[in-house]
């Protein structure tokens, strides 16, 4: 089944409430997927900075002294802020590739959840409420974010199998559905240089979009092409540094509800997820059409 939520703020005065609003939306969707939960939050970017959100199954060992070790290795300021099993490593954009390399050398078991100037991704196995509390999501601010609560149908119930999937800088994708041609598409993308960390079908969709973006396509076009190349059932919600997109397959079996007001655009697998948003009773609420790309940008 799976539950998806997303919130794209137009009114900047709502930004301090982003984490709290998204958390409430995601907890409402718990009964659509109690296996794992994840959330991507787009916060303030520095313009020249870069963040890596990383995860470890042994955070005490892996994150202890990590900042110092990275500083020594890179000879440049690197900050590491730990949040439960995750940590956010901040450095300059020029240093990002070197930081990733140093990280895989110093802490080979640490997994990168996301990279980019503004996005942070937190995901773990467990009920959404618990997962969100562990990372203090309700206290986070930002301009937009997406969340997912998973009922596993493809691949294992693990942290890496949780959504959102991020396969490019400041990009992420959540998926409700199942793809039928993900294995052949994965092989094709691998031949084109994309790398994969799981056997999950949704990671293939995320990598497909990233691959198109890397080749110069804009997100709207990449999503249009996904309708031709991805086979199966899907409702995707995607985030980029400044954008928020929604697309459903042509059969549109998987549910989706969009709501828009002057202050925000909100997405939910069900209307229930949206009912406590400010001004929802006056919002334009509609069901996105099948095989139609919806996209908003700041």
């Amino acid at each position, binding site marked *: 089944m799976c539950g998806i939520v997303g919130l794209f703020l137009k009114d900047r005065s709502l930004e301090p409430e982003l984490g709290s609003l998204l958390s409430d939306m995601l907890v409402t969707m718990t009964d659509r997927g109690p296996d794992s939960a994840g959330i991507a939050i787009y916060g303030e970017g520095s313009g020249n900075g870069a963040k890596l959100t990383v995860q470890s199954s042994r955070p005490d060992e892996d994150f202890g002294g990590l900042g110092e070790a990275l500083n020594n290795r890179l000879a440049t300021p690197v900050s590491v802020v730990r949040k439960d099993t995750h940590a956010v490593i901040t450095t300059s954009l020029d240093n990002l590739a070197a930081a990733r390399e140093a990280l895989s050398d110093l802490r080979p078991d640490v997994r990168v959840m996301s990279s980019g100037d503004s996005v942070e991704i937190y995901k773990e196995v467990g009920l959404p409420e618990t997962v969100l509390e562990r990372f203090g999501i309700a206290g986070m601010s930002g301009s937009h974010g997406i969340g997912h609560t998973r009922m596993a149908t493809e691949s294992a119930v693990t942290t890496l199998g949780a959504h959102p999937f991020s396969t490019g800088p400041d990009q992420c994708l959540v998926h409700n559905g199942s793809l039928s041609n993900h294995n052949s598409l994965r092989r094709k993308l691998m031949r084109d240089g994309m790398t994969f960390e799981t056997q999950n079908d949704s990671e293939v969709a995320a990598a497909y979009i990233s691959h198109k973006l890397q080749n110069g396509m804009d997100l709207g076009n990449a999503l249009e092409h996904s309708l031709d190349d991805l086979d199966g059932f899907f409702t995707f919600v995607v985030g980029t540094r400044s954008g928020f997109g929604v697309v459903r397959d042509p059969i*549109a079996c998987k*549910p989706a*509800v969009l709501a828009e007001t002057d202050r925000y655009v909100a997405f939910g697998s*069900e*209307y*229930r*997820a*949206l*009912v*406590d948003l400010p001004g929802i009773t006056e919002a334009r*609420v*509609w*069901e996105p*059409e*099948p095989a139609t790309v919806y996209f908003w940008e700041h």
Partner: protein
Amino acid sequence: MATLDLAESSLRELNETLQKLPDGTNETDWEVINPKGSHALAVGLDAPIHVTVRGSTGYYCAGMNKHATVHVDGSAGPGVAENMMSGTVIVEGDASQYAGATGRGGLLVIKGNASSRCGISMKGIDIVVRGNVGHMSAFMAQSGNLVVLGDAGDALGDSLYEARLFVRGTVKSLGADCIEKEMRPEHLEILADLLGKAGITDVKPEEFTRYGSARKLYNFDVDNADAY
């Protein structure tokens, strides 16, 4: 009018209260407040009561309805009035997927749009949609009437049996074995009756086109193999 507040009582209490009302009850007028998109609201009703839901509902509102009139003063999620036996369900806003699916009787009125698979496998229910319906509406519909004042999406009436489909606007495409048919006086009469029951007075039956089954897929015939 008695009010049931979903902010105070559980969905189970609400449905139990409404389901246990006997035929001939004097408590005929009910209002449900704070539905907040809840699933399975006012399902399995079996008495001629009026229930008004103030707000939008989730999955399967008024499913399996018998005798009751359920009025949703908002939009309805997937499967509204699924498998209705009799009675009336009115949705003021839009309805999501498979509205009125497998319904055996009664009347479903959707004042906004209905999305995909509206009336899928309908078996005697009458459905009147003021706006548009999505793709694959009336798929495998067996009997009853689907009236659409707006437009219909792709594959209308795919693998249709004996249900009658009346569309006032455009049809994006017809499904397998569904064809346009002549509007005879008895069809105008049926349509006028349904529009009247749905409270629609600004539209004439003559403005509609009728669609129905070409009846080529009833029994397997190798000459029709391409149509399957």
